[in-house]
């Protein structure tokens, strides 16, 4: 690219490494446990705020707006609307690594495949769930498209039980 380039001296560097993974242990609550168990039974669970009535999926402890505890859980529909979408560039081998692994090399995506990431508002929820949209050409995706959850063939009570969403067939 024809940007103006400037030449500057490169002085010696002192090197160092930081093992983020090896040196830190994070503590989390088991709140997602109920959500993952719900997915096993093909149920999408959200937490209901007693103050503003919002249903947040996946569940959380405290409402972000009115700061009340969200103890009550409700089940929302597995049919929803695409509120936003982003289309990746076509994947190529050697282009990017996720957690140290090349997705094309390990067969997760095909060479040239474009992944459609969507925000889905399931009916009854007041938050977006981010997931993948399959079964449609990227050019045909539009905001407001109605979609249905795609469940894993053998649910195990893990987040991956909600595999993706696909266009709702009327």
């Amino acid at each position, binding site marked *: 690219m024809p940007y103006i380039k400037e030449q500057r001296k490169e002085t010696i560097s002192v090197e160092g490494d930081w093992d983020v993974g090896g040196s830190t242990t994070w503590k*989390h609550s088991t709140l997602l446990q109920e959500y993952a168990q719900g997915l096993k039974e093909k149920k999408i669970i959200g937490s209901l705020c007693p103050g503003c009535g919002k249903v947040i999926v996946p569940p959380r*402890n405290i409402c*972000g707006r009115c700061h009340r505890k969200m103890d009550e859980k409700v089940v929302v529909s597995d049919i929803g609307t695409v509120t936003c979408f982003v289309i990746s560039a076509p994947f190529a081998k050697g282009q990017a690594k996720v957690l140290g692994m090349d997705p094309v090399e390990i067969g997760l995506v095909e060479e040239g495949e474009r992944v459609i990431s969507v925000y889905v508002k399931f009916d009854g929820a007041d938050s977006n769930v981010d997931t993948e949209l399959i079964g449609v050409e990227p050019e045909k995706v539009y905001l407001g498209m109605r979609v249905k959850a795609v469940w894993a063939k053998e649910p*195990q009570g893990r987040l991956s039980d909600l595999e993706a969403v696909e266009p709702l067939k009327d």
Partner: protein
Amino acid sequence: MRNVAIIGCGQTKHSGRRRDVNLAEMVGDAVWNALEDAQVGPHEVDAFTVGNMQGFGGVAQPEQWLGDWIGAPGKPVLRIATGGSTGGCVAQAAFYAVASGLYDIAVATAWEKHSDSKEPGATTGLAHVGLGNTLNMINFGVSFKHLLSMVAAGAAAGVACYQAMYYMHRSGCRVEHLDMVAAKDRRNAANNKYAHLQWPGCTPEDIAKTKWVAYPFRYGHICPASDGASAMVLACEEVARKRCKKPVWIKGLAAYSDEENQIMSEGAGGIGILDASQQIGATMSAIKAYKMAGIKDPQKEIDLAEIYQPFPSQELMFAERLGLFDEGTAWKALEKGETDINGKMPCDLSGGVNATNAIGSSALQRILECALQIMGKAEEHQVPKEVHNAVAHGWGGATNYIAVTVLGDSPY
């Protein structure tokens, strides 16, 4: 509360690899440039506010060891880190120091040195921001394909990609407009000797030739990761009137935080914000800052804006949130040339964050650039009209920190 003015500004040249200096030398350069511009000696400064993104350059508290490079011994130093809006909040904290009456002269400085990290760009920093949540999801069995889908959408851009789609859907803006904004920013940066991505004569067609990263962003739309530092000297009214020919008055300021709006909240729970382009913090802080500044009609009274726009869609979106254009019309104004140097509402004549992004420094540079325009010191990118009021904006965190500052050539 006293009136506070900016009496001097200093920057270093921002570039992708400032390997000719170490961090302390780089920040020191900016501070000494500012002190020289203000004609203030280091022993006259009463307080320092500093800031950058923690951990991005591999040093957690750099102000510990660069204190005596910037003249801080014997003075209080306050560190502020609020994501991308760090620079704006650092300047606002210096304002608090002087307006409160506790200190007469304060120096605000912010910087970033991405090239100290071996990973390209801001990878290291961004990775350890999202690491805890990602590990929690892995703990509950998130699929690798899902992680890939998140990375595919957001590797370079994060939630800004989604935010742009929302904005484009609501307003009718198209990818061509993003090309136009990015080209304008890089063209403008060529007239700013401190900017990073300088492309003289860049056209939207040039930007449109670059590869897609994730629709709607191309490589040519995305901000760089720069090394650089900037600094400003703030003073109370008495000192400013005595020592500065044309002080720049901070007439109004406000900052709002919000629920994190990245992709998930703490513990991988959901977020109650359905529209990532709503950015209510921007609207509310603009209302409060304008009220404090006595501005009733920003479209008529604001002469230019420096908007925090690492992505071109944000220049249009935030311009609307700050009340500079009616909802959904910023892209139409862009087509008519209203955001150019000779237009009605020049935006980001310095190239903005799209052309120069040293994260800590970038929001401070927005205030600094407005100050330079009001002082008449912006050299090649000086707007050819009198600037009475300008608005500077900072944005960051998980798209939830906003800082808006209104500057003017008189305190009232």
